[in-house]
């Protein structure tokens, strides 16, 4: 309420939302502003008659509420919570994104095969339908949770929070471990949704066009590492590796790139080394623990 004139129709406060900014109330007849909006730079024009009569409280005028509320605020808050939970346990979490068919699941299976002597691993699989991918992961002996998004085109932080609860309930979320989240195959939508991961890793297979980073810039810009997969097929294709890397770095300056083939094993050591460095950082950041 304005302490000078007593105006304060509606006593509008928006809890948990960006504070209401200065904005004149739509009703020009009044010349008053919403409470909290005016810090008394407003002129108190001579008011004829008692305030109640002038402000006509029974009238419900249109008013503008300034919100400035991020549309993804609820997702981002949950993602921050996921990140904090993972960080407290020293878990290195990655969000693997690509188009369908880039070889994400095959890369995961092969990564797990080489990794298991280092730390525990858990996997969260995202697909619209089927548990095929989680079944492939479980066949390696590693715990996996399958999220089926139905019609959804991406994972969000809420789904991942639930998957983390499931893993934890199964005793499958070990401290100082590696968590691999395979997003829904889609180069567009997952770019916008923070899941609480340490990094997004974009996978581009050489059977796709080398200009994918320019066609889908949001995803490559959101990534902290690009893996060029299926490089064993390069002799049979016209894919220009240098051009693909150059275009990726147009949208994400300095983007690290690993060229990799799970068939020949080329690049696997570099990828495993990158994972080890990340796990080490996550573990050190979590110390000391109670």
């Amino acid at each position, binding site marked *: 309420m304005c302490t000078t004139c007593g105006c304060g129709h509606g006593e509008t406060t928006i809890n948990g939302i960006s504070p209401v900014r200065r904005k004149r109330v739509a009703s020009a007849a009044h010349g008053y502003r919403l409470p909290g909006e005016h810090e008394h730079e407003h002129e108190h024009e001579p008011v004829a008659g008692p305030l109640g009569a002038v402000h006509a409280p029974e009238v419900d005028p249109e008013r503008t509420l300034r919100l400035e509320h991020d*549309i993804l605020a609820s997702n981002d808050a949950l993602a921050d919570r996921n990140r904090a939970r993972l960080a407290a346990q020293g878990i290195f979490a990655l969000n693997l994104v690509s188009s369908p068919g880039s070889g994400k699941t095959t890369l995961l299976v092969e990564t797990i095969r080489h990794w298991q002597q280092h730390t525990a691993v858990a996997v969260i699989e995202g697909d619209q339908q089927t548990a095929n991918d989680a079944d492939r992961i479980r066949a390696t002996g590693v715990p996996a949770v399958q999220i089926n998004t139905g019609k959804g085109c991406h994972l969000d932080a809420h789904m991942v929070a639930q998957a983390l609860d499931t893993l934890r309930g199964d005793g499958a979320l070990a401290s100082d471990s590696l968590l691999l989240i395979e997003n829904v195959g889609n180069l567009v939508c997952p770019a916008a949704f923070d899941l609480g991961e340490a990094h997004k890793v974009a996978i581009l297979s050489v059977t796709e066009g080398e200009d994918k980073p320019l066609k889908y810039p949001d995803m490559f810009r959101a990534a902290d590492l690009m893996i060029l997969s299926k490089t064993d097929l390069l002799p049979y294709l016209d894919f220009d590796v240098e051009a693909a890397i150059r275009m990726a770095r147009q*949208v994400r300056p300095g983007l690290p790139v690993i060229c990799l083939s799970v068939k020949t094993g080329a690049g696997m050591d570099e990828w495993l080394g990158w994972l080890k460095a990340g796990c080490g950082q996550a573990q050190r950041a979590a110390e000391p623990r109670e």
Partner: protein
Amino acid sequence: MHELSLAENVIRIVEAAAQQARARRISRVRLGVGALAHVEAETLQFCCGLAARQTMLADAVFEVERMPGRAHCNGCGQDVALERIGLPCPQCGGFDLLVTAGEEMQVLEIVVA
């Protein structure tokens, strides 16, 4: 089609704010979408209309304000306008750009009664 998820978030945000303000109806919703945001502004606007059905926002008009993209060029040190990701610095042609504005996706304001 993540615009529909975003539109559903818009409806939730606006309903919560309107209820908090004890509003009875919402006539207008103004969204702010940066030129470099991960969303197609027109699709978002369309999806808001779909998501608004059978809610307090059923009769609301959705407007989108486009905010320009800005970046700092590490190559030439200039602050420049950036229309979309993937374009070079308009001053020096380099790509070492740090986006400074234009990624917003917000509910800017609502008009209620």
